[in-house]
């Protein structure tokens, strides 16, 4: 395994979040009755003409700016010709020689560190319809609702060297397109799907090996597993004296294997040519400037800011910038709890809160504990009203039953006992009824100290101030 270097490039189709299709005024809403959102243009009826959607172009510009790419002042729509019943015109309108977004890059983070993945291009195109092969007694059923839905196809250079890196890139890209609100990122509904190009070569070899393309992976786990089994397949093939054939393959998650869909010779002659129905797409600088002015702070910039200005570690900063909602929640929390250390805020957002959201399958905007409420709890933690352990219990109550921290603390008597007189009385009693343990401790068995702490926490229902408890206990046990 170790003598082989893995080379991976990705092509991702992100469905753009427009209301209407890329070349027609039909709706793009998901889940409608078959063919109720397929108009004359989408059906490819004679005499119709495509008119590009300004919203789709604007989203392409947003993406290009977010990855530091060139926005082409002039780009060209081309016809990609192939025959399939869910493609009524017999060609897909795409972009070929002159795509709207050229170059750019993404930064990814893996266990191995930070890495830049170069982008080749991103181009606008229309989606095809859907074929249903079951239940039509020898026929296929065609639903053209999806035909003409705007896609941005985002293509990388072959810069990734492991399944880990490919998944990190896919996740970063998924986070970015949602961040800049050009795609809803819903992978179940097919709004974000990846084709992965995989090849292997001996370490040190300059030329790339022959690659295979694995099509239509719609989960991060499948991307990883598909790459792993495709790499194994290619290495085994070469080590057995065979050669990899350039082809398109499909990943079958049930059998955890890839299998050939079509070979390169078979079907790849798309006979691209500029679409005569569509003059060039022109984007002037003023439009680019306008779009740039409307972009939010981007994840990479936010990450740097969290690390540099707030002193957060790479791990916390990474989690807080995985989605815009996570960072927005964190910042709302900080605003509402100005006295609380940023690291404490980050710990709570990435710890208790993230775990609770995960369990409930909610995102940050739907959190049952709002940033204001969590801030209320963290203030009580910071001022010593409650201990860390009790704070976690209060958080659980806020999550399951609602309410704010102060009300819960009062209603349940959870205030930390910081009155040293009261605490000392409790401790004195414990010491008096445990002569054997006292003798052990005084005989040098330090470990017994834990026994007393446990007894004290039990007696106070966890409400003893831990620092104060330790200090008082040591004094008492010293005799």
């Amino acid at each position, binding site marked *: 395994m170790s003598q082989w270097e893995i080379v991976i490039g990705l092509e991702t189709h992100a469905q753009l979040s427009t209301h209407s299709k890329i070349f027609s*005024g039909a709706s793009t809403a998901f889940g409608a*009755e078959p063919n109720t959102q397929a108009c*004359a243009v989408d059906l490819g009826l004679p005499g119709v003409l495509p008119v590009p959607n*300004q919203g789709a172009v604007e989203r392409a510009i947003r993406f290009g700016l977010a990855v530091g790419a060139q926005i082409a002042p002039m780009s060209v729509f081309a016809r990609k010709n192939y025959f399939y019943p869910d493609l009524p015109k017999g060609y897909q309108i795409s972009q070929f020689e002159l795509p709207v977004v050229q170059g750019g890059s993404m930064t990814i983070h893996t266990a191995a560190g930070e890495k830049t993945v170069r982008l080749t291009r991103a181009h606008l195109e229309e989606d095809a319809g859907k074929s249903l092969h079951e239940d039509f007694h020898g026929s*296929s059923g065609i639903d053209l609702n999806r035909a003409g839905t705007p896609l941005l196809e985002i293509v990388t250079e072959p810069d990734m060297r492991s399944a880990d890196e490919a998944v990190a890139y896919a996740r970063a890209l998924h986070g970015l397109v949602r961040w800049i609100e050009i795609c809803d990122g819903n992978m179940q509904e097919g709004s974000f799907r990846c084709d992965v190009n995989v090849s292997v070569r001996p370490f040190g070899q300059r030329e790339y090996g022959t690659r295979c393309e694995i099509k239509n992976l719609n989960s991060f786990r499948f991307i990883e597993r598909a790459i792993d089994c495709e790499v194994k397949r290619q290495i085994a093939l070469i080590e057995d004296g065979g050669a990899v054939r350039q082809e398109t393959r499909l990943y079958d998650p049930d059998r955890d294997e890839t299998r050939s869909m079509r070979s390169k010779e078979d079907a790849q002659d798309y006979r691209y040519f500029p679409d005569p129905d569509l003059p060039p797409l022109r984007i002037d600088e003023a439009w680019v400037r306008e779009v740039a002015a409307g972009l939010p702070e981007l994840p990479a910039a936010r990450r740097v800011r969290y690390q540099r200005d707030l002193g957060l570690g790479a791990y916390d900063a990474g989690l807080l910038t995985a989605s815009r909602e996570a960072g927005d929640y964190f910042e709302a929390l900080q605003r509402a709890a100005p006295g609380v250390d940023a690291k404490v805020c980050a710990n709570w957002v990435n710890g208790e809160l993230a775990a609770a959201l995960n369990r409930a399958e909610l995102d940050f905007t739907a959190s049952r504990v709002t940033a204001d409420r969590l801030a209320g709890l963290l203030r009580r933690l910071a001022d010593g009203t409650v201990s860390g352990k009790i704070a976690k219990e209060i958080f659980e109550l806020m999550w399951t039953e609602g309410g704010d921290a102060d009300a819960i603390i009062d209603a349940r008597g959870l205030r930390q006992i910081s009155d040293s007189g009261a605490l000392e009385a409790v401790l004195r009693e414990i010491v008096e009824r445990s002569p054997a343990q006292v003798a052990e401790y005084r005989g040098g068995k330090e470990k017994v100290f834990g026994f007393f702490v446990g007894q004290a926490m039990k007696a106070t229902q966890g409400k003893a101030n831990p620092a104060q408890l330790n200090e008082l206990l040591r004094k008492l046990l010293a005799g």
Partner: protein
Amino acid sequence: MSLSEDDVRRVARLSRLAVSADELPRLQQDLSRILDLAAELKAIDTQGVAPMAHPGADAVALRPDVVTESNRRDAYQAVAPQVEDGLYLVPKVIE
């Protein structure tokens, strides 16, 4: 520039055209002549001339992102050879 019979068969297959053996020589000749014409054009020096794919409008007009189409499925499907459950039916296709 002359095309082989194999080239013609391949182009026909890509275009999903059924071409009989008797038609091949004639098509081979016609297509070769068309390519000859293209070769003449290709010989012209176009260094420094920007490619022009579209002789008409200089820039495509864009439309605002608004849904303007309503559901007219019944009208569209009235001319389809076969429909069922709102789907267009076609001879079975499997990759």
